[in-house]
């Protein structure tokens, strides 16, 4: 565009936001359209069955509005206790194990061999979802909360070690240099230079993970790893929507409470 004086009638069109080339843009739009048609074409929805479902949907919504906490009160309570104890123990054990692994996976303080080993542990733990791990642990250790506990501990390790390692890699190098300059040993270095810098974040992340573990504990029960998820699964397969509504409400409330208090704890720690 040259700097000539503007002429009346000069058109203006907004330049495209993405993909400057016109051909590429049309190609992408076309491809998206073709995909949508194909995907919707293979959906194969059984509308008769869906129509039948509306009645159940109504029952579920009424169950959600008038939840029944008492009829299966005992099952709900047991499931809840299992979930909570499982969550807590798994978080504690997970944190204890992830601290050394996290330190080992930090490039700036760990020797290369240890770094490789710890990073592989993290990668394995993160590759699969909790539910897949739970399937394996249930097959090995039998049904019940113990398998759930192992699942959640294992998942915690992947989550926490990775974030901890990244934190350690991000710390202020000048501080650890200053401590190293005093002739401190490796353990003293960790204690004086690393720990003060990453401790608040570690506590915050642990609390956050506690929150996540509780949510997950509601899921892994579906494949037999105990907890409130098992109770929920049973009530659903009985079409007992009043109890299911009650359980879902309890989960929502507990997650809200956990989120609220964890954000407070994290603020308080920092």
């Amino acid at each position, binding site marked *: *565009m040259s700097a000539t004086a*503007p002429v009346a*009638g*000069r*058109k*203006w*069109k907004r330049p495209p936001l993405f993909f400057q080339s016109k051909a590429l843009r049309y190609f992408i739009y076309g491809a998206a359209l073709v995909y949508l048609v194909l995907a919707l074409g293979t959906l194969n929805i059984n509308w008769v069955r869906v129509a039948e479902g509306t009645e159940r949907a109504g029952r579920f919504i009424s169950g959600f509005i008038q939840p029944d906490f008492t009829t299966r009160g005992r099952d709900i309570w047991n499931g809840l206790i299992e979930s909570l104890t499982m969550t807590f123990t798994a978080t504690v054990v997970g944190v204890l194990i992830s601290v050394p692994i996290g330190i080992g996976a930090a490039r700036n303080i760990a020797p290369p061999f240890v770094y490789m080993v710890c990073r592989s542990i993290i990668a394995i733990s993160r590759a699969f979802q909790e539910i897949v791990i739970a399937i394996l642990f249930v097959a090995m250790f039998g049904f019940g909360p113990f398998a759930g506990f192992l699942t959640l501990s294992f998942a915690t390790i992947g989550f926490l070690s990775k974030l901890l390692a990244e934190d350690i890699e991000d710390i202020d190098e000048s501080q650890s240099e200053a401590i190293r300059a005093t002739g401190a040993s490796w353990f003293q270095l960790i204690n004086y230079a690393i720990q003060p810098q990453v401790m608040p974040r570690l506590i915050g992340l642990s609390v956050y993970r506690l929150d996540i573990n509780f949510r997950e504990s509601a899921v892994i029960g579906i494949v037999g790893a105990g907890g409130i998820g098992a109770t929920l699964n049973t009530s659903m397969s009985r079409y007992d929507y009043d109890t299911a509504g009650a359980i879902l409400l309890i989960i929502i409330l507990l997650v809200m409470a956990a989120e609220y208090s964890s954000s407070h704890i994290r603020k308080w720690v920092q």
Partner: protein
Amino acid sequence: MLRIEALEKRYKTGDHALKGVSFAIEPGQVVGLIGPSGAGKSSLIRCINRLVEPTGGKILLGEIDIASMNRGELRQVRRRIGMIFQEYALVERLTVMENVLSGRLGYVPFWRSFTRRFPQADVDKAFALLDRVGLSDHVDKRADALSGGQRQRVGIARALEQDPELLLIDEPTASLDPKTSRQIMRLICEICAERNLPAIINIHDVNLAQMFVDRIIGLRAGEVVFDGKPDALTNDVLTRIYGDEDWNAMRKTADEDAADAANVAAFEAAREQRMAEVPA
């Protein structure tokens, strides 16, 4: 033209920002509003187009009272008042042209603005304004790709695109270097003269204000304490507005600053030059 009568603003926090401010502005008059931080300059300018709701008094633009309007009427009157902001307040992720055309939002229906199909007359005017402020090469650049001085020029073009009857200008030079500040002030004053457009300029730099405006209003703690010609702004008056300070020393340093600034500005200009040469 614009008449303000006993304007009051009391914030919910209890701050009494404006205590019965009254003045009137003639067509084509450029008024500089000076005063210490917290004197209510910003509140006053924002009360006029009701970005801040006044709690009492009248704002008469022509015959109509802005202070007592409902939302629909307010939209009609806002488009008659152009505003230029301190930190440019361009929508950074929109192009220069879209920013300028946003000055027409009060005139076009939603679907036209949504599809970016503005009337050709608006587009013509936008091109002419961008040419007037010297940015015809940057039409389709994103606003955040421009330098500070260039952004403020876009801000000016946006305000003028509204065909305003009044300009409200909030600290136009606060984030600019001294040389660019003068250029921008000169541009604003020239445009106001060309169009016989009245303007209220909120400005903290007393020297710059004296250099360019026709009339100065001094505000202190929400009250008008001075209203007159720029050359009537004596050291006594300044003390009345700002409190005690060695004004002669300050004026002297300001001159030295300006000399220093020339070097900075030369560097800036070279940079702008380089940025302009980068292909869009």
